[in-house]
């Protein structure tokens, strides 16, 4: 195991503070085999800073509560092993930056729940005579990929439309494109959400930099399988060749930039 080389202890720099003021605070943590960042943070909480605010639930990558930025990268703390990080320098743990801070590692993600509520719900077609439905596995496969979403909002955090341009009023964000893609590919659904996808959800703002796909802990191919098909679906209805060309050029440029880094 890679853990064999794990040092005895590590330094953690955890962001501590409120919206008013705050700073990174350094803590020494003894390491155990297999330790993840969340273990280290909870150890700090239990032994050194009882009021250290952090969200967590399942500690197994299934609930999406413990989202944070570890050494600047959006990640689930429960799925980030200490041994995967360089431990010759402090591990920096900060809250997600795209959302208002509440305290320490906890931020206000309520905007996401507001966006969710605006999406028209699933509306099934009439069932078979026996009151149930038939769907083949191949038809539910696509939707099942989107349903792996654990609503950790890391994709929302990393998305520059939200993070850098504060487009929260015109843009639903990758997490909800995933939800929309689930609804739109659901074999039984009859609701038409194209207007919402284009207008309220603002799928056009996405310029396919794929940052969301990279941080998704569930490995959902957000850009390729959710966003691009949604864009195409909208484009079918509101055909806009020049806009589309620009969009592609922008995306190619961004991709080149990304590859260079």
């Amino acid at each position, binding site marked *: *195991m*890679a*853990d064999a080389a794990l040092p005895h202890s590590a330094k953690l720099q955890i962001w501590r503070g*409120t919206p008013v003021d705050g700073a990174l605070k350094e803590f020494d943590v003894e390491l*155990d*085999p*297999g*330790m*993840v960042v969340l*273990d280290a943070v909870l150890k700090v*909480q*239990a*032994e050194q800073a*009882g*009021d250290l*605010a*952090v*969200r*967590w*639930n*399942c*500690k*197994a*990558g*299934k*609930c*999406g*509560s413990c989202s944070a930025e570890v050494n600047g990268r959006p990640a689930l703390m429960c*799925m980030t*092993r200490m041994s995967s990080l360089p431990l010759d320098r402090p591990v920096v743990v900060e809250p997600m930056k795209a959302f208002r801070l*509440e*305290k*320490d590692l*906890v931020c206000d*993600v*309520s905007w996401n*729940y507001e966006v*969710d*509520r605006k999406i028209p*719900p*699933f509306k*099934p077609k009439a*069932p078979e005579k026996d*009151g*149930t*439905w*038939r*769907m*083949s*596995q191949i038809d*539910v496969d696509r939707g*099942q990929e989107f*349903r*792996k979403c*654990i*609503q950790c909002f890391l994709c929302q955090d990393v998305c520059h439309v939200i993070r850098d341009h504060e487009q929260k009023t015109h843009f639903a964000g990758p997490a909800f494109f995933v939800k929309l893609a689930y*609804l739109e590919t*659901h074999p*039984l*659904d009859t609701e038409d959400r194209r207007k919402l996808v284009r207008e309220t959800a603002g799928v056009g703002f996405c310029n396919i930099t794929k940052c969301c796909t990279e941080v998704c802990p569930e490995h959902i191919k957000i850009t390729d399988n959710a966003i691009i098909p949604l864009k195409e679906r909208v484009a079918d209805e509101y055909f806009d060749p020049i806009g589309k060309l620009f969009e592609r050029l922008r995306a190619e440029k961004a991709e080149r930039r990304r590859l260079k880094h």
Partner: protein
Amino acid sequence: MSVAETHAQDVLVIGAGGAGLRAAIEARAEGATVALVCKSLLGKAHTVMAEGGVAAALGNVEPKDNWKVHFRDTMRGGKMLNNWRMAQLHAQEAPECVHELESWGALFDRTADGRILQRNFGGHTYPRLAHVGDRTGLEMIRTLQDHVIHTGVKVFMECTIYRLLTTGGRVVGAVGYWRESGKPVLFKAKATVLATGGIGKAWQITSNSWEYTGDGHAMALEAGADLLDMEFVQFHPTGMVWPPSVRGTLITEGVRGEGGVLKNSKGERFMFGYIPEMNQGEFAENEAETKEWLRQTELNQAGRLADVTARRPPELLTRDVVAKAINKEVEEGRGSPHGGVFLDIFTQRTPAEIQRKLPSMYHQFKELAEVDITKEAMEVGPTCHYMMGGIRVEADTAAATLPGLYAAGEAAAGMHGANRLGGNSLSDLLVFGRRAGRFAARAAKEMAAAPEVDEGQVDAFVQRMEAPFQRDSGENPFAVHKALQEVMQKYVGIIRSREALQKGLGELTKLKARAANAKAEGTHTFNPGWHMALDLDSMLTVSEACALTALAREESRGGHTRADFPETRPEFGKFNHVIASAAGAMKVRREPLPEMPADLKALIGGK
């Protein structure tokens, strides 16, 4: 009054896991106004971690299946201590509840002819668990969440309910605090549903999250409701054992359902040696037969074989049996390097099948333990997982013994008896969440005006919530919690004895004094140390209830095992343990099992 923020709805639902969500939806559908309050963000509750599937006799894979077989399996799995009426309603209504989820958008895995696919699980005679790979709980909670947000149910996230309010012996609401601001909040309601889940955080090795502190049990008991069968805690046989960071994390029973086998350090499939008397003749007796079972099962699920004639592998015995077998193998020196046994699926299924059927298990092991389960065995051992006992309820209405109070899901007792079958919790929360919501709403409708709240009571609870801040010196609440977990693991664990339980009760008394002195540092803003200081109260209450009833049950049955009474004693199979609070102390008494009607008795048969 010391609370500035008050909300008033017809029905207050506490807890937003599957049971709470389902209760809220139903209460709203009945026309009631509903407040749904949860400690975490919406969609993060424990249901999200359920993996293997939801048990319902749909008969899609095996047409011979029906509610009667499901009822029989549930009663036998519960060692006949279940409330028969709950087991009956559950078996009858589960299929409809699963279809209901599909009508709300759930995408279950499919059979070849496009219906909901069902898999094998321990204790279920036929493939019965509707599932989505190994993330069924996520699919269910998301479906319920997606549905509830469009119903007009008012959701209060990250708000912890501390205690119930009573007026004239009736529950009239609750008081709690916002986790972010720490400010108290009052909820008035004509009827209150407790869907607060379990108590596993009182143990050291557990699959449960920080939320599982037994709040609902403790507040119900304090308000005057009865608890039932608190000695029956389920230790799931397969938790991760290595590395220490993930000790206790759940490995779905679906691994065994898909053919996974258990081996000891000598490479023996030891479960062949642990088939209980009551199951003799029902399980495969050698490896060749289990291989044949797997072959037939695959063909059957693909729709290419009508009947599975081979008997099931003994790895699919009920959880209590498998957990105790693993415990014994380890105890007798045949364990794995880190004190578990080996569970392997890679010798039974192809890598592609494993990744398709058990994707999160694959990732969980790969990322957290550096084990590739398509090539290597997993190390597994028992982990505290589920509370069979809980708030005593009336079967049909989910009403607790206190007027105005209802309970559903893991917080309620009776449905599972002495041992729960895998998959029956997800169906339980749908069936009884729905019933609790329905009957709470109807009771609320019958009341003309909301009952008065006793302001003195509110003030007293707010003062108690404040206490950890007001101590000049005191203990770290996390240290007390750690000590409690050690005590429960050591003295009230999977194997118990009079001596250990008495020792444990003594330790709990000392811990109560320590908890009463736990101090919160810092401010009221999102302060987990303070929250823990308050949660300790609930955890100590349920721990004591568990130890007391475990001491009183001088036999071994289902999830309760006594080293000093290793046999199941028929005279102990005639009653449940009821716990009530009398002048601040717990009183345990025996309550005869409700008499099962003859037609249902006939379903269960001789064994």
